[in-house]
């Protein structure tokens, strides 16, 4: 993409005009193209991008693989279970927690469920929650930030106090205490509970993450808007009688994509680990529906005795968090090379 497509400046005959040849040599490039060029030069960021893409592919593919029966997250039938699990201790039979060709990461103690299948499906659910939560956070934060920054005055101070209020909530305590109540309310207003309550419980986590996550986004956006609104093209739009809506989303928003993209890639990994932490506290999608958080929680006691069982979900979470973090850092460097790290 760093070289313009050949037909961009080409004439209708496809024969490059002399003007076009000159243009190709001093090719003008969009900011995104420039950013991509910078990004590609950063090896670490590229590795992070590949790892992150692998996780995204896994997230998309694993429910399909489960549906067609390639992956099975269920407890095996008793006859098979007894070949996987010691009936006296419940521990997996075989080396490294029962690692074999059919169970590449071993099996879960006590049930014989395939750990590989559970982790892959866990990636899907954890990433879905983190992704939805991050998108919602960005949307709420951006809208409120733009409105506050552009309007100023009463609206600005109202949003400012709302931010203070939200930040002052003892969020962890609140989300624990409210979990049962809000989940019930969500069911009451018609949110489908889904298999084993996964939809409504997952939605609760998404709402909690967004509710407590939007203030920093709003502050960031407000700061950006404060400088943008003094630009001439905004004045021009006002003079032309554009609607507020148009100014917010057609004039100002397009100039915020870069910081938003960076913030989004950094938010995603924090939400992945937040989901894991919430699972540990008993909030969110309940077992046996696997998320990275509750697979890890189930493995907590086994750090000494079944290290493979404990470390694999931990490594999955770490890999997702690190790759998306590096991706975010790389995106920031590429999009805004002048900003300090």
């Amino acid at each position, binding site marked *: 993409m760093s070289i313009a497509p050949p037909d961009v400046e080409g004439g209708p005959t496809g024969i490059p005009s002399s003007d076009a040849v000159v243009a190709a040599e001093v090719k003008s490039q969009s900011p995104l193209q420039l950013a991509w060029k910078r990004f590609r030069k950063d090896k670490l960021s590229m590795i992070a991008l590949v790892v992150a893409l692998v996780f995204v592919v896994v997230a998309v593919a694993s429910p399909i693989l489960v549906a067609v029966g390639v992956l099975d997250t269920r407890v095996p039938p008793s006859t098979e279970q007894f070949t996987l699990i010691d009936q006296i201790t419940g521990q997996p039979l075989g080396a490294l927690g029962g690692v074999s060709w059919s169970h590449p990461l071993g099996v879960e103690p*006590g049930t014989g469920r395939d750990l590989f299948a559970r982790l892959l499906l866990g990636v899907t659910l954890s990433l879905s929650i983190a992704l939805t939560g991050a998108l919602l956070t960005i949307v709420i934060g951006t809208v409120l930030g733009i409105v506050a920054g552009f309007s100023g005055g009463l609206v600005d101070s109202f949003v400012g106090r709302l931010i203070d209020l939200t930040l002052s909530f003892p969020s962890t305590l609140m989300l624990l205490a409210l979990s049962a109540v809000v989940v019930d309310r969500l069911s009451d207003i018609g949110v489908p509970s889904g298999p084993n309550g996964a939809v409504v419980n997952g939605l609760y986590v998404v709402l909690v993450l967004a509710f407590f996550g939007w203030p920093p986004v709003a502050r960031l956006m407000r700061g950006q808007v404060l400088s943008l609104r003094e630009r001439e093209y905004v004045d021009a739009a006002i003079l032309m009688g554009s609607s507020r809506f148009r100014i917010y989303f057609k004039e100002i928003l397009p100039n915020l994509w870069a910081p938003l993209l960076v913030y989004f890639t950094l938010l995603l990994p924090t939400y992945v680990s937040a989901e894991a932490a919430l699972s540990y506290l008993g909030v969110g999608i309940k077992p046996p529906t696997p998320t990275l958080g509750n697979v890890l929680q189930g493995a907590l006691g086994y750090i000494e005795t079944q290290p493979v069982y404990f470390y694999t979900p931990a490594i999955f979470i770490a890999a997702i968090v690190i790759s998306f973090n590096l991706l975010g850092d790389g995106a920031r460097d590429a999009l805004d090379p002048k900003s300090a790290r």
Partner: protein
Amino acid sequence: MFRTRKALALAASAVLAVGLAGCGEGSSGGGGGGGGDIELNAMPERTDPTQGGELLYLRTSPVEHLDPQRIYTGVDLSNASRMYSRSLLQFPSGTRDVDEANTPITDLATDTGTSNDDATQWSFTLKDGPTWQDGQPVTCEDVKYGVSRTFAQDVITGGPNYIIGYLDIPTAADGSSQYKGPYTGEGQDLFDQAVTCDGNTITYNFNKPWADFPLAIASLRAFDPYREDQDQGDESEFTVFSNGPYMLDGDWNQDTGGTFVRNPEWDPSTDTDNNREANPDTIVFEQGADATTINNRLIDDSGDDQNAVTYTVPEPSQYPRIESQAADRATLVDSPFASYLVPNFNRVTNPKVRQALAMATNRSAWALGLGGGNASTAADSIINPSVPGYEAPSGDLVAPEEGDVDAAKALLEESGESLPYPIKFTFPQRPSYDRAAAALKDTYDAAGFEVELDGLDPTGPYYDTIQKPDSDSDLIWGGWGADWPSISTVLPPLFDSRLNLTEASNGQDYGNYDSDQANDLIDQGLASSDLDEANQTWQELNDFLLQDTAYIPLDVTRFLVLRGSNVENFVQSESTSGYVDLGVISLADGS
């Protein structure tokens, strides 16, 4: 009558009882040198006990009460009997024979009691000689006063209150007894007629037959003597005025525990067959650590922990360490607790659906999820096999251990309900229960149900939640241990709808089961003055309940307990509800 025993089973903190001791696999002794499997019912050899030393008792949950009339936890009932609170009768110490362990022997009384023909009147004569820790003799009046305290239901809370229903005292309009306990004195003359002292002989008059009354005396502490001049009501909750071999040294700390030392007034010759050997000089109770920590300390076996015992079972994740480092210091027995499922009869009204549930229940995978044979074993009845009178239900009443998905599917299709049939399954949430419940869910789902797992916060009031009659759970987990070794403390308290069902609560009948036929059988069983005849009725009732799918059997909890390397004469049996018997325990290096 439930909180203690039930609560402990829930906390997985209770210990043993050798259900299958009589018919257990004839395996040889425990593995030597620390390595190897832990064998069921393999106890260390008894040795000549050494006197002296300081025994350390590690507990997770704090002692709820020291006051005999308020104790209701299995471990504390046994410990109080062995250490400081004698009763008319007791269970023999140190035996591994189920029948012997379940047969009361004398303690303060000279014989195991005489009753009239229909078991409505019981008399016991007290021995000369037993004294309190201040040297005064234990009198008939003390025993009578102890019994009277249970009637003060606003002060003496938490303990078993069977006696209120049995003693021949008229009830007030609201159904409570007209006797309000010794503190108000209201109705005292009624009580004095129901329980009489004639010299050294105490006589109880009941309003209905109580054939297994001696078992209740030996099991519970509610019938123990109490000295009136030592009674400060609620203030006495954590005080001890001993008539046994140990007395409390200083005060009891509700958070950290306390220390018991020898009672100088204790005369072993007043005990029966030296039942309380009382070998250690002191017994220190240390409470508050969690199960993992306690068992890690016992595995490591260093310092004072070499003198330690516990009732707290380890986490399944600790089994490999136990096998490699502490197998020779571990014992494994079947506990007196059984767990089971009840369908909610308010919601699952179609009998075919309930039968399908029972048919699809994979008990073996459930037991495996809880930790395998070290933690649990599949059961075929709600009655623990260690309870006298237990008989396996006839074959076709209970589904195969692995469940029969095809048969369940057929039943579900016959039921005419639209499939998948939604089921909300409520259980106490913990990693091991999550795994076990997931195993149940997978077979249920395969049979045509769609199960939502509703794991309740284990630190919250689990039973309060499931006791709500309007609960939206369809399938509910419960655990139970007999209050004394008799089926009359298992089936009637759990399935008598008249006893349990009120507008605010379903009592122990979590499935809101209401059957006149079952109630009639309960009346018939409780009215029997002959224990064998009663047991026949209980078998009939149990078969009826299974046929009606009033409950689905799950598993018998097992107690895997570790001990320090210096501990000798370690015995767990039905005598002490499967907990370590402090009557015979000793320390190798007693100094």
